[in-house]
Structure formats: structure tokens, C-alpha cells
């Protein structure tokens, strides 16, 4: 299970990098960025994952086997922060893309570069 998830994370990252580098459509580039970040988030989550782990909340019942059986809560906190950052960056990028479309009447990066030199 964990190995498959690592492969999935790497595939997500590779797909994202491919989309950012090779696509000429701005929206597709932004989607590629999102997929890339999702791959990283998955990677972070798997780092803290344990097979058959319990939720990282200490109660009176589980305190003696908590350390060996709970999943690592820190990566989840990191991913939460990172998702918020990613959301705002995506929103900003999309707004800028619409403004670019208003000015240039296209979202093809090659044409934008040609127009502006």
C-alpha cells in the first residue's frame, strides 16, 4: 500500500512537471502546477503514514501504546498549511490569467511572448 502511494506521488509530480513545461495554454500550466503540488502533498502524507495506525489523539485508553501505533500528525499539519498556500497561489494565478486574457485576447504563452517581444 505504502509503496503504491509513493509511486502515485511520483507519477503526480511527473505529470505536473510535464504539464507546466510542455503545455502552451496558461490554464493548463496552472492545472499542472496544482497537480504537481498535489503530488507533493501526497508524498508528505505518506511520510507520516503507518499501516493500521490510529488517529494521533491521546486518550486514557490508548496512552500506553500511543507512540508505536499512532500516525505522525506533523505532516498533516504541514499539508494543511501548504494546501492553503497552494489555494491562494492558484487563485492569484487564475486571476492574473483572466487579466492577461483581457489585455492580450489569448492565453497561449507563445503568442503572448511574441506580442510583447
Amino acid at each position, binding site marked *: 500500500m505504502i509503496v503504491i502511494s509513493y509511486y502515485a506521488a511520483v507519477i503526480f*509530480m511527473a505529470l505536473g512537471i510535464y504539464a*507546466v513545461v510542455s503545455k502552451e495554454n*496558461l490554464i493548463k*500550466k*496552472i492545472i499542472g*502546477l496544482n497537480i*504537481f*503540488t498535489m503530488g*507533493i502533498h501526497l*508524498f*508528505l502524507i505518506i*511520510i507520516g503514514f503507518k499501516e493500521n495506525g490510529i488517529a494521533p489523539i491521546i486518550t486514557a485508553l490508548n496512552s500506553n501504546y500511543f507512540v508505536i501505533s499512532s500516525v505522525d500528525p*506533523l*505532516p498533516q499539519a*504541514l499539508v494543511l*498549511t*501548504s494546501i492553503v*498556500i497552494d489555494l*491562494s*497561489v492558484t487563485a*492569484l*494565478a487564475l486571476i*492574473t*490569467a483572466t*487579466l*492577461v486574457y483581457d*489585455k*492580450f485576447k489569448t492565453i497561449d504563452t507563445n503568442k*503572448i*511572448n511574441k*506580442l*510583447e517581444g
Partner: protein
Amino acid sequence: MYNYISYIVPMLLCSAFIIVTLGHKYKKLNFNVTIIALLSSLIFTLLSLPKLLNEGIIIYQLSGWQAPFGITVAVDGIGFLILSLIFLIGLIVAFISKHEIKKRRYQFYTLFMFYNVGLVGMTITGDIFNFFVFLEISSMSAYILSSFNRDKPAFESSIKYIIIGSFASSIFLIGIAMLYGMYGTLNMADLMMKIVPGFGNNIPLALILTGLFMKGAIVPFHAWKPDVVKSNPASFGLAISATSTAVSLYAIFRFVYTVFGAFYFSKMLIYIALLTMFVGAVMALQQKDLKKMIAYSAISQSGYILFGFGLGMMENIGFVSAIYHLINTVIIDAVLFISAYIISQHFKTSDMSKMGYISRQNKLFTVTFGVALLSLTGIPFLNGFASKWMLYIVSLSLYPFAAFVSFIVSVITLAYSFKAFHLIFLNDKRDYEKTPLFIPLSHKVMLAVLLVIMLVLGFFPDLGLQLSQNIIDLSLSRDLYLMGVLS
């Protein structure tokens, strides 16, 4: 002793909040709040100097959580210098933008305060994920600021910057994730203690360095910077050229030297530095646009600083020359961007081929700009000379080829400086004498002060050398950092 450093970030955030809520109603408030916040941050930084000199490093555990679990604020010698530079350059930027930004001023100042918050946080934090968050804060405000003019070039540069920048931050995040997976900690000092030397460390370090290179516009990843500087106000250009590069170079030092202790990276840093200075200078030679030329020249100079850091991994004197060159470069950048504002205001364009003959209108301004260009090149008795000379001397004994390349780059720098000086000040294709050159009083004062500093540092290079030596003495001890944070 009382701890002042930790008040700076909340204070800057509060000032941004005041400007964004009240700024568009009370017009004068924007500038005044910015100046007050930056000045008091500078005073807080300077007040913590005795603590730095006494203890060697300023440590503060945020909200009392001990080091591996909480976030630590750690400021050493270079960090102190970078903080002072951020606030000084911030004050200069505020004074330029007072005349330059005519509309939507509250937006500019709000975003500029957020930008400073990010840079200050990156400098003082001792936690790598916290570093990432502050990196994103400063980057996001820079993305928005880079479309401030709301015309075609501005939007094009902005979307380019957003895609390259957020891609770089994501790469940085992979580095952090790998480090956490390998060593189970995010605290820099804790990481330093737990790191086992080995080949596996190179991959996260390389990913982190890639992110920092993009943020600081080091050469393979520099493409966004000239466009952003060209299509935006000169004041934002100064902010992004001087302070952003300084902070990312400091972070490179912090990661490679302090955290990883990867002294074998010196050769790679030197190669990248040579590439940076060469490409920056060659591209600057081709530019017709004044702001773009200054941006490329700033890239080239950041190559020299990185070169000094690379050499410093082998001989500590390299760090001293790098810090000295950092101080010189920031001063020269400030002069060049203030002048760029004045010149492009005068000609209503920043295209150098449409300029000419300012030398007849204002002699003192001509001399100041000429001195700045010559000290950029490294002419003796001006401030850039001593630091570049030290870099040559240090590299001559270690890598003679690198010394040769950096000398060639200095010659190219001289070439583009002369080209710019000729086109702007001496070229008399057209008659420009009808409108007098307007320089606001605050700009005159800033230029005069910076000119005096350049000449003083040029004639008495020992002053700057002594200063950088003291700064380096305060920041090279890795044991002190480790003990200070973890005890």
C-alpha cells in the same frame, strides 16, 4: 536582556493592516505608517546589537516552546546585517515611491509591507517549514506587485513570475518533505545535529537550493527578473533586486554552511556563480532598456557574492569578501535605481536610445551616476574595488581559472557601464535642454548620502573590511548556533 527582534514581524503585519483598512481614505497615512514601521523596525534591530555582541547569537524561543518542538528565532551576524539592509532599502523604496506611485498607493504600501514581513521572517526563522511559509508570503506579495502597472508588459511579467515562482516553491517543499522523512525534524539546529554525512543528503539540499536560486534570480533560473523590473515602478525594482537577492543568498549560506555543513558544495556554487556573473554581464551589454540593464547587472553582481560564498567554504576570507561585496552592491543598486527613476521620469521612457545629454543639465547627478557605474566595475578608490580585489586574490590561489573569468566579467561590466553612460549623459542627437531635470529634495539627500558612503568606503576600504570581518566572526561558529538553539 530584553528581546526586540521578535516584535518586528507583528509590527510590520499590523502596519500593513492599518494601511489596507484606512489607507484609501486618509491619503497621507500610507507613507507615514510605512516610514514609522520601517524606522522602528530598524531601531529595534539596532537595539538588539548589544545582545548579539554579548552572546554571539540572538535566540528567542517563540511562546516558550523549547527548540525541537517550537519555532526558534535565531539571528547571527549576517542575519543582523541583512535585517538592517532590508529596513534601510525599505526606507529608500518608500521615499522613491512617494513620488513615483501616483494612484492606488495604499495597495502598493500594503503589499510592500507584506513583502518585508516575508523577507524578515526568512532571515530570522530557525525552522525550515516556517522559512517556506515566509518565502511564500514574500513571493505572493511580489507576484501581485509585479502586475502593479496593469498594462500588457506588467501582466506578462507577472504571469511568468507566478508560474516560475510557485514551481520553485513547490520544489523547495519537496526538499523539506524529504528532509523530514529522513531525519524527522524541521528545526535547523536539530537537523544540524541529526544529519549523517552521506550522498543521500545531496538530493534534498539540491532541491532546496533550486528553490532559493529561483527566488534570488541566480542564472539558470533568472528569466523572470529583468521583465519584472522593466515593467514595474523603479522602487519595486530596487526592492526585488537588492533585498530579495540578499535574503536568498543568506539562506543559501544558512542551508549549505550552517545546516548541512556541505563544504564539498563549494565547487558547484563557484561554477553557478561564474555562470551567473558571465550571463548577467553579457545580457546587460545587449539591453537597450535602462531598467532591464540594471536588473541584469544586479544578477551579475549577485554572481560575485555567490562566488565569495563558494570560496568561503574553503577559506573563510571568501565569506568576508562576499559580505563586503554584498554591502557595496546594495549601495550601488540603490543609487542606480534612484537614478533610473529620475531619468525615466525626465524622458517619459526607460529606453536608452531615446535619451541624451543630461550631463549639461546637472553636473552633480552625472558625477553620482558615473561614480556608481565605475564602482560597479571595481575601479580603485571607489567602493566596489576592495571587495572585488579580495575575491580575485582569494580565488587566484584556489581556482586561477575562476579568477580569470571574474576579471573578464569586470571588463564586460566596464563596457556596458560606458555604453549606458554615453547613451544617457553624453549622446547629443537631440536637443533636450528645454525641460530642466527635476530631482525631488528627498532624492537629492539620498543620492548625496550614498555618494559620500561610496567615496568613504572607496578611500578607506579598511572600514568596510573591518565591518565584514566582525560580521563573519559573529556568524561562522556552527557550535554556537547549535548550543544556542537547543540548550
